[in-house]
């Protein structure tokens, strides 16, 4: 787990591969890579399709609809500039791909993870409140939570 993140260990940040994703978010559209050869949806973006290694893939708009696979309420952020608590979640998207994001909800009762796991959610776009000030796709319940 968690050792020094040397440059050679981290993914390239803000590169040609991922810029179109952030540009789409800035326009209020969630996109994901779809392989032209085999139709696989994948995320995070990579040079080739992880299912068939085809270089022929393109970003396509997503429905923005998904379901919470797992979540955690974070009470200690990476540094003191993060306002806690906030809710991280793994979202399974309707097209069969997955992304990490935040849920825009009141942190749930810790005793009932079942209330959040399996929750149907939709994308909302939130300005990033720290550099590089992108627009971040976050998720909110499709129906108001009881």
């Amino acid at each position, binding site marked *: *787990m968690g*050792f020094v*993140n040397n440059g050679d260990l*981290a993914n390239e940040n803000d590169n040609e591969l991922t810029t179109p994703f952030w540009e789409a978010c800035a326009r209020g559209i969630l996109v994901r890579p779809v392989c032209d050869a085999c139709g696989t949806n994948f995320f995070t973006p990579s040079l080739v399709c992880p299912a068939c290694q085809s270089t022929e893939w393109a970003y396509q708009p997503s429905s923005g609809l998904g379901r919470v696979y*797992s979540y955690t309420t974070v*009470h200690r952020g990476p*540094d003191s500039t993060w306002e806690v608590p906030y809710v991280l979640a793994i979202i399974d998207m309707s097209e069969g791909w997955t992304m990490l994001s935040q849920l825009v909800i009141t942190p749930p009762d810790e005793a009932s993870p079942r209330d959040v796991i399996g929750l149907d959610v939709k994308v909302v776009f939130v300005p990033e409140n720290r550099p590089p000030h992108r627009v971040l796709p976050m998720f909110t319940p499709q129906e108001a939570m009881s």
Partner: protein
Amino acid sequence: MSSNPLHEVAIVGVGRTAMARHLETSTLRACLDAALAALADAGLTVHDIDGISARWPGPGGTVFQPGSSDWSKLLGVPLRWIGDTYPQGVPAALEAAAAISTGQCETVLVVGGQADLAGGGKVASYTRPDNEFLSCWGSITQAQFALVAQVYFDRYGPDRERLASLAAMIRNSGSKNPKAVMSGRGPYTSADVLASPMIASPFHLLEVCLATEGAAAMVLTSRERARDLPQTPVQLLGGACEWFRQQYVDPPRYDEVGRIGEDAGRRAFAMAGMVPADVDVLELYDINIFEVVRQLEVLGFCGEGEGTDFAFEAGISEDGRLPINTDGGLLSFAHIGWGGPTLKIVEAVHQLRGEAKSGQVAGARTALVTGAGSGAQYHNVLVLGRDD
């Protein structure tokens, strides 16, 4: 037991510096101190080693990789083999063993650690993964593990108080260990654990590992040469790794990484000709208390979802039926980053030589060591035995 070249390799010396929240020395100096301590423990000098696995934390050296070759100048010895595994601990031991058992070199020094990192209220840099699809959400390392744990909790509903008791048992082993960073803190009850601040649900502060400083080292050589050295050798009986996916890029899912370690554990035990019940002491990679339970399950000590009750009923302190992390573990002894997994081997060697000054398990002859875990999306397993 079938013949395996791994069995012809032994750990003959171990060393570590003092462990602390902040060490007033450089990483390089700390690593050098641990290296010289391990060599002295082995009854060897720098002139006896012809292989190094160490990386190079600077200052000086070169921008060129592999960093381990910079150690030949520092120590004034030409080398026949170098390694640069990520991380150290089990992968470094296995790689060194492969070099030794294939005749590429005879004696390998493994050393790593960290010191004098910037503090200032921030959590250590290696606990803040910086991938662009992680950092923007504020995903600390423990949150990655929490995402796996939440699905497990939802599915199996482990007894929360018993799970917290396990964290208390490991923390209390550290509490009475003078060498632990958290020495003298505690003892704790399950209620104390559950009352400690939440870090990332479901983990409380006392259920997650430290981020501290120090360095650890070990010396490996052939069993044949080991017989001429002063310490009782500790033989490599079995070992294996699993790498599911790069850590901290794509989120960890329980259905993908919840059982990581099962395959490596099965292969390591098969190499050793052993089953889980044959293990006398366990040094599990306790990034958090959930990982201890999860690892017991995937390594075959008990069934999926049964780890909490199994460990609680056995007892995991030095006098329990299932002694785990007898030095206080990552929860209480120390966690020193990339070199940290070697600390697990150092403690296992102390146990098998009967030399642990705190938490010694009487008559321990076999040990199991693990590294990493589900949230990191890789895992590794090593089985060790006293060789006399």
